């Protein structure tokens, strides 16, 4: 990042895209050092939404901590829940019954689609295409209706319990999911007609916020942001958890690692998730929903690190237990927190309008960053 004196050696203009700025996804303040239009340095100030989730983890029992996790990454609440429940099950040495595993995978993939739809809507809105936002939310509404019918809540779903799932499938479930999956790929093609070949969209996203694969790994990027730079790494394939090994789907990766690649990667991921859901709906086995475990969960002394592929990246749980009913230390590795570090590198040298595009492409959620 060149620290050359500014063009007319006028002092840099420090503009702060403050916490209440319309296009930062949540309460993030970015202090920009501008030389005219060009960004010299971007420094993120976070912590406005800090609720001490990890301290809560130490003062709530394992079962009670699950709803608090839904409020961490409120857009992909189901994958937070899945990651934590699986970590505790691994500690207890039990596995959820196959029916519960299938329901879990199905719901997590639907949640991935909602998270990507919200990303697409807000990202396109920041760059000016207003209608994509409305179309994306229309599809998202369908999935939220499925969640509401299944577990009673739309966003903070608290769907799974440690040891399996709490709710039986309601009777209209299969065909509601099938109708959604049947016409969803066509809808994704519609978003693509509006954006992918649009010369304004191409101009605004190609070559913006490019990052090489090596630099991405070093800074710790994960998820679609990393796959945009060409690294073919997805925890669902690398270390299959739940019953992901039963489904075949492929991992889209980009080539140059700029905003356009990450956009294409996420659009492709939505189609792959729809593929998984369509396979999962057909093969849900019968059987119990919850594994046999005592009412009060007391995992043995020890610690565990378990990570899953949340829509934003690698979501890891590091839990230390001292044998009591409450975790001794519940550490969450949030993907958005680490991805946001890359903003500084990606934005240097670009225009102010690109800062907005790069924040959109990193797909950050402030609830997860500030914990």
């Amino acid at each position, binding site marked *: 990042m060149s620290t050359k004196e500014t063009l007319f050696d006028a002092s840099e203009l420090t503009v702060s895209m403050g916490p209440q700025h319309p296009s930062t996804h949540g309460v993030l303040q970015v202090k920009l050092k501008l030389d005219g239009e060009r960004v010299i340095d971007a420094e993120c100030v976070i912590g406005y939404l800090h609720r001490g989730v990890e301290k809560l983890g130490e003062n709530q029992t394992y079962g009670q901590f699950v709803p608090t996790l839904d409020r961490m990454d409120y857009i992909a609440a189901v994958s937070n829940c899945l990651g934590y429940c699986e970590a505790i099950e691994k500690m207890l040495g039990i596995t959820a019954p196959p029916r519960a595993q299938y329901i879990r995978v199905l719901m997590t993939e639907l949640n991935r689609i909602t998270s990507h739809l919200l990303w697409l809507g807000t990202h396109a809105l920041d760059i000016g295409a207003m209608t994509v936002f409305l179309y994306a939310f229309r599809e998202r509404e369908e999935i939220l209706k499925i969640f509401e019918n299944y577990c009673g809540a739309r966003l903070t779903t608290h769907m799974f319990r440690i040891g399996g799932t709490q709710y039986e499938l309601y009777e209209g479930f299969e065909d509601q999911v099938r109708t959604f999956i049947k016409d969803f790929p066509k809808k994704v093609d519609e978003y693509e007609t509006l954006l992918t070949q649009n010369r304004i969209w191409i101009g605004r996203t190609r070559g913006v916020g490019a990052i090489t694969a090596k630099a991405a790994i070093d800074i710790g990027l994960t998820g679609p942001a990393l796959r945009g730079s060409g690294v073919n790494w997805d925890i669902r394939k690398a270390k299959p958890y739940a019953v992901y090994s039963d489904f075949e789907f492929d991992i889209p990766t980009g080539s140059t690692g700029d905003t356009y690649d990450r956009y294409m*990667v996420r659009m492709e991921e939505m189609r792959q998730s729809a593929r998984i859901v369509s396979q999962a709906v057909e093969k849900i086995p019968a059987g119990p929903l919850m594994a046999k475990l005592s009412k009060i969960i007391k995992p043995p002394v020890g610690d565990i690190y378990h990570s899953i592929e949340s829509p934003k990246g690698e979501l890891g749980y590091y839990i230390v237990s001292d044998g009591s009913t409450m975790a001794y230390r519940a550490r969450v590795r949030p993907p958005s927190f680490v991805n946001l570090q890359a903003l500084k590198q990606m934005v240097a040298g670009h225009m102010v309008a690109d800062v907005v595009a790069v924040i959109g492409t990193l797909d950050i959620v402030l609830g997860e960053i500030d914990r």
Partner: protein
Amino acid sequence: MIVKRPDLSFLKKIFFYDLIKGLLLTFSYQRPSENYTEQYPKERAKVAERFRGAPRLNNDPVTGETLCIACNLCALACPEHCIEVGWERDPAGKKALTTYTFDLSRCMFCGLCEDACPTPCLELTQEFELSLYGRRDMKLDRQQLEAGVQPLIYTK
């Protein structure tokens, strides 16, 4: 599977092919049948049957007195400590419920109390219009809980 990066042929660029394709799509969505908005106060939202809304203490349909056995399990299960159960021993030695307060302002509708309740007494209804005028009204006592939170219907 490498993601493809389609590019515009020169000819398409001249005749604004991509821009016109976008225009036609937005034009095609103007049919009123495609409309998605719901006029909230007039058209009521269709709430799912398992929706976790305001809590209610169910009574025994036959005898009419409460099903609650004052076991205090729901108060322990609640992460937000919203529930306080008051009970005293009746002559037969069994616990009888006297007071039951539920602090709606702190509740996050996670449903843990509903799971912990051994009898079908505590239930989260489908009521989602919970805005009240004071924090004090948020602490529901037993009578309010048994009657369920009455929504004030928007009349205009």
